């Protein structure tokens, strides 16, 4: 590489450090910041933030005591600083992601001080690595990202200590390396793969002094043995003192399989590492983007193309891959290749050993440790390409892929946050209060509901934001996933189910459910009344099956309404059709047909109407109850355009009591099938 060659003067040196740092900050900002203010709570954030809000931030000690107690060291101060606002957590996550990249750049600079272009490119690929998709999940991933930065700083400090001449400095740096090692392992025990990276780096430095493999290894240990202290202390505590209650983080539990079936387990681990290696090196650049293509926005595409063009121009000027001497380049590529490959593999071994694997998008976090190795490996491979245009072309493809992936991922998160906020605002308009201990079943229009707390989290933040139980962390209302298992349990009328996860106690009750469904983004949220179920054409079949069991009495219609906290759910949305629908539906539950008519009048005056015809139901019932045959006749063509809705309208309207003969005749002739 041309820039391995010389470092002529101080100002050039300064530029050679400041410019890459600025470049990394700007590149990562393009990848992660454009939609940062639109990310809300997601995934585990729901139970974490509910618990902290209701029981105080010290609750993190209880929650993390089951698997990673030291995460409380991050989450308690973070909550004290940022409160409930997701924006601050996401900004903080970005800052630590950049700090991690800078620490990585520092490591690379210590290893190859003259290969500035290559090391900058490696750090750039690391910071925009598209295999890690949880960056917008800034609250829960605070620990992951802070741990990542700490791990890389720890490695850098070890290398700096080795290269330092002063004994005091050496000691101080080793001590700091130990502290940061304990800290990062405390955040994520599977980050222990970074120890492979640390020792590979040390070995690489030691190997430069020559000798046999044994000599080099011995020299590496002599230089860096204090670095064993941090992980050593952590492992002693983890194996001998700490009792993990969670299978995935329990060392004994995970190793038991190995003791019982050593050969099969070893084979399984080997295959898993091989498959994961493929995932982190190649699939990470393809699969996530293929999964997210539909979320790419034109402005995002333009921004990404522009950023890539700048990157390619910079690399063109920097002349990547050229050196003053052939041996120097060969030495760099050889070292980088082995360091990258072994780091990528080493980062995956602890993950395979706890029977986890890299999977996009759900388990993308497991690619984090290896991503450092992958970035090094890719640049080493690129330098092997003899054609400059091919090199630049490949870098452009990598940059485009990575930045587009992060853009699309951010759009997806932002859209899901918006959809979820809208959902709960509608619930707040519709439901003044949920009965305590009711079980909610929800269908969101966007984003999968993977855990019950995706539903009880927001519900409790609105309806039961205060402490509910003196002994346990326990929410006020519970939830169950809409799944085949739940359908079976609901149909079998199964009873309350006790569950304690992360010290949070819930009691989902399959005889005590209320269904909230918003099958599409254009539809409104509907609270299903099992006595008179109304289903949209778009409702999932599981909802259709369980609808008769949904108990509307868990909606306490006469309580004072609750307003969703703005910091979590955003400001109240404009009052469109769904606002009036929810208010009318609430009035219907209260039996106040006059109110339904009045609300309908307000909506229709504004030319509002439903996108989903099932939302006509409260109004149709009100017209039927008040004998407004004219309006029923007027609406019939609109409603019967959807035979499925018409069929339900027919059944529900004719089952109403005290209808006039004329109304019955109108309904029968206009809404009921022949």
């Amino acid at each position, binding site marked *: 590489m041309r820039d391995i060659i010389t470092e002529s003067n101080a100002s050039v040196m300064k530029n050679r450090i400041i410019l890459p740092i600025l470049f990394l900050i700007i590149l990562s900002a393009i990848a992660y910041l454009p939609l940062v203010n639109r990310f809300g709570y997601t995934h585990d954030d729901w139970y974490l933030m509910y618990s902290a809000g209701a029981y105080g931030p010290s609750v993190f000690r209880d929650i993390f005591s089951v698997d990673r107690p030291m995460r409380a060291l991050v989450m308690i101060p973070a909550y004290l600083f940022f409160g409930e606002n997701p924006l601050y957590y996401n900004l903080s996550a970005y800052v630590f992601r950049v700090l991690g990249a800078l620490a990585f750049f520092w490591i690379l600079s210590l290893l190859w001080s003259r290969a500035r272009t290559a090391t900058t490119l490696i750090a750039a690929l690391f910071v925009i690595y598209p295999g890690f998709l949880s960056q917008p999940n800034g609250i829960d991933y605070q620990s992951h990202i802070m741990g990542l930065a700490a791990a890389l700083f720890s490695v850098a400090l070890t290398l700096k200590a080795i290269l330092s001449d002063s004994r005091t400095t050496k000691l101080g740096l080793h001590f700091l390396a130990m502290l940061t090692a304990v800290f990062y392992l405390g955040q994520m025990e599977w980050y222990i793969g970074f120890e492979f990276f640390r020792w590979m780096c040390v070995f690489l430095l030691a190997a430069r002094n020559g000798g046999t493999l044994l000599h080099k290894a011995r020299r590496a240990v002599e230089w860096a043995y204090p670095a064993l202290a941090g992980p050593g202390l952590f492992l002693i505590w983890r194996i001998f003192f700490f009792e993990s209650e969670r299978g995935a983080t329990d060392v004994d539990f995970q190793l038991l399989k190995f003791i019982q079936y050593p050969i*099969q387990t070893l*084979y*399984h681990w080997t*295959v898993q590492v091989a*498959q994961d290696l*493929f*995932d982190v090196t*190649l*699939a990470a650049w*393809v*699969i996530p983007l*293929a999964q997210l*293509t539909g979320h*790419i926005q*034109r402005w995002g595409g333009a921004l990404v193309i522009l950023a890539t063009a700048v990157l390619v121009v910079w690399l063109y000027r920097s002349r990547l891959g050229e050196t003053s001497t052939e041996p120097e380049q060969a030495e760099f*590529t050889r070292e980088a290749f082995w360091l990258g490959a072994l780091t990528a593999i080493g980062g995956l071994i602890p993950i395979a050993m706890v029977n986890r694997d890299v999977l996009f998008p759900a388990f993308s976090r497991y690619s984090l440790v290896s991503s450092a190795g992958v970035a090094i490996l890719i640049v080493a*491979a690129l330098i*092997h*390409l*003899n*054609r400059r245009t*091919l090199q630049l072309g490949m870098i452009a*493809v990598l940059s485009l892929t990575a930045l587009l992936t992060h853009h699309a991922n951010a759009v997806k998160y932002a859209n899901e946050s918006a959809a979820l906020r809208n959902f709960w605002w509608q619930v707040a308009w519709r439901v003044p209060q949920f009965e305590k201990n009711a079980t909610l079943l929800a269908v969101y229009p966007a984003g999968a509901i993977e855990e019950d707390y995706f539903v009880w989290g927001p519900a409790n933040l609105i309806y039961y934001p205060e402490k509910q139980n003196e002994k346990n962390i326990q929410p006020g209302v519970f939830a169950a996933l809409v799944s*085949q298992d739940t*359908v*079976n*349990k609901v*149909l*079998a*009328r*199964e009873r309350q189910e006790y569950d304690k996860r992360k010290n949070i106690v819930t009691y989902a009750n399959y005889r005590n459910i209320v269904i909230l469904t918003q099958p599409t983004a254009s539809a409104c949220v509907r609270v299903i009344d099992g006595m008179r179920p109304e289903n949209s*054409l*778009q409702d*999932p*079949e*599981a909802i*259709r*099956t369980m609808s008769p069991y949904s108990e509307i009495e868990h909606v306490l219609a006469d309580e004072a309404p609750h307003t969703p906290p703005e910091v979590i759910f955003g400001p109240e949305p404009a009052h469109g059709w769904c606002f009036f629908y929810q208010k009318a539906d609430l009035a219907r539950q209260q039996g106040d047909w006059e109110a339904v008519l009045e609300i309908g009048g307000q909506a229709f005056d504004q030319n509002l109407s439903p996108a989903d015809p099932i939302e006509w139901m409260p109004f149709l019932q009100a017209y039927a109850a008040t004998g407004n045959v004219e309006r029923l006749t007027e609406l019939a063509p609109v409603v019967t355009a959807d*035979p*499925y809705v018409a*069929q339900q309208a027919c059944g529900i309207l004719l089952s109403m009591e005290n209808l006039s003969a004329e109304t019955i005749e109108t309904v029968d002739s206009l809404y009921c*099938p022949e």
Partner: protein
Amino acid sequence: MLVVSAAIYLPFISHFGYYNDDWYSMYAARVNGTEVFHEMYGIDRPGRAYVMIPLYELFQGDPFYYNISAYVFRLAGAVALLWLLRLIWGERKLETFLIAFLFLIYPGFLSMPNAIDFQSHLIGILLAFISLGLGILATRTSKTTNRIFLWFGAALTGWAYLSQMEYYIGFEAARLILFAVPAWRSDGDWKRKTGATFFTWLPSSIIPVFYLIWRIFFFQNERVTTDAGIQLGSLLTAPLATLYAWIINFTQSFLNVTLFAWGVPLTQQAFPLDVSNNMRGMTLGVIVAVVVLFALRFMDKTDSTTAESSNRWRDEMLIAGLAWTMTGLIVVVLANRVVAFPVYSRYGLVSAAGAIMALVAGIRYLSERRLQIALVGLLFFSSAFTHYANGLQYAGWTMSLRTFWWQVAWRVPQLEQNASIIASYPYSGIREDSFVWGPANHIYYPYQVNPGKVQAGVHAILLDHNAVVRIINRERQVYRKHVVVDTYRNYRNFVIFSQPSPQSCVQVIDGLQPEYSTYENDPILVIGPYSEVEHIKLDEAFKTPPEFLFGPEPPRGWCFYYEQAAYERQRGDWAAVLTIGEQAFSQGLAPQDLIEWMPFVQAYAQAGNSDRLVELAPDIVADPFVARQICLTLSNDPSLAADIKAVITEYYCIPS
């Protein structure tokens, strides 16, 4: 190439059956004769009939022979490609061999086991390479007679391959690119070279030109996906959105064909395999990689005796390969299609050879020889492992489908004509209603039911959200001509066959007394009450599924006895149910899906055998979903004695 491709493609060849379009095409040919292929392909690709008719006459619809034939054509295609490439880069023995070899085992094409329908694709590829080769030979021959013969041969094979697949017209761009390579080697400026390329190509231009004239002005296309006018029409109605979609589709397809074909199918197909198949697949991959690397090393030594005149071939191969890839994809993208794995992998076939040329050239650009070897080894490993997993998956589908229909044959003597079936296979994958009515008609109506027409004897409803809503709405019969087969699916007139999990038996849902497995999917739960078992004709003779398609009768395990018992229950013969039960239990057989106890539990209840009801209760109530169904069904059965109802209430009902 022969040995390695046989190891990759042949292991499961006897386990493949009908897939996708095979169901309607083979049914139509079986009941109406091979002339039906003219009508079938007359709507979009008339030339395909001239391939399918002789093949059907030869193979009589047996999928095994079609798979052998597909393998032979695939191999022949690769050999033709090798010949073609050596006409251009005769000195680069190793690279041309590597390209042809990688093309032969290209993991981006996953439809090899779907051999019946893809016969035309593979023959088309072979003919295309022969046509391109003959075209190049024609330009080199000085003797006019030979030139005319070669040129004539190129034209004939050219039209022949285009008659199989119109989107193969991308090969005509490849022809132009291959003509350009020698032209660009000569001296002179780019204008002169372009002119030389053009004039060399000019005689061959009659191939695409005549074909397009026929296709656009004379041929009446009835199929939307192959109608150029309709496909390009979107550009006029929404130009910006269409252009944007084309760019995205092109980029995605380009990356898929060139790079991701070597990885994405591997992750989709191979990684989820169970441990034993994973080991087998990996072992095959490693053996293939080692054998190939050994062979390549030998070739490389032989090659190195030839002095490397220049490195220009790498530039040529890279540029020509990329251009071939891009032009091959343009036609696909303009037809609003995209190369996607695994379903639309076929659209990458035209570009695959070009993409591999570029890949091999790219590998040869690497300065580190060990890296080159490692990459080539990885490519072969990935291909072998991917095809192993792909073959296993196809074989698994066939096995599962055969088991399903054998169980139906045990349960259902005959289906009422014009009834509709809703089926739920344990591995899903029912994308068309023909996947259900196809096998059903091969068993129950393997003859012409309506003179002068190709009409299915029984029809099928694809179980999706739309069907659920139509059933609830009690919608009426819908006519659909499935290319040549007339079908009349009826949402008021159907019976459900469901095998909710691989360990379950096929369960015929009776809407009057629906019983559902714990594993049953939600749509079946919703529409179960509408299923009408009266479409099963109980007094007819049982039909035997044809062995060439459904294999020999499987061993008679639990499911045989369950199906027979369910049949007797429908006949109301409780004594027969008890006898069948004893036969099964005496062999130590028992259901893995607890709902399958139902016919026997009902028979015990009818026979007043409370001891057996009590004995079975602990096993059954382990699944509250099943227990509740037994509780509700038997508690409400007026024919049962009070003491039996008391046993049911005590042992099967969960207190409120």
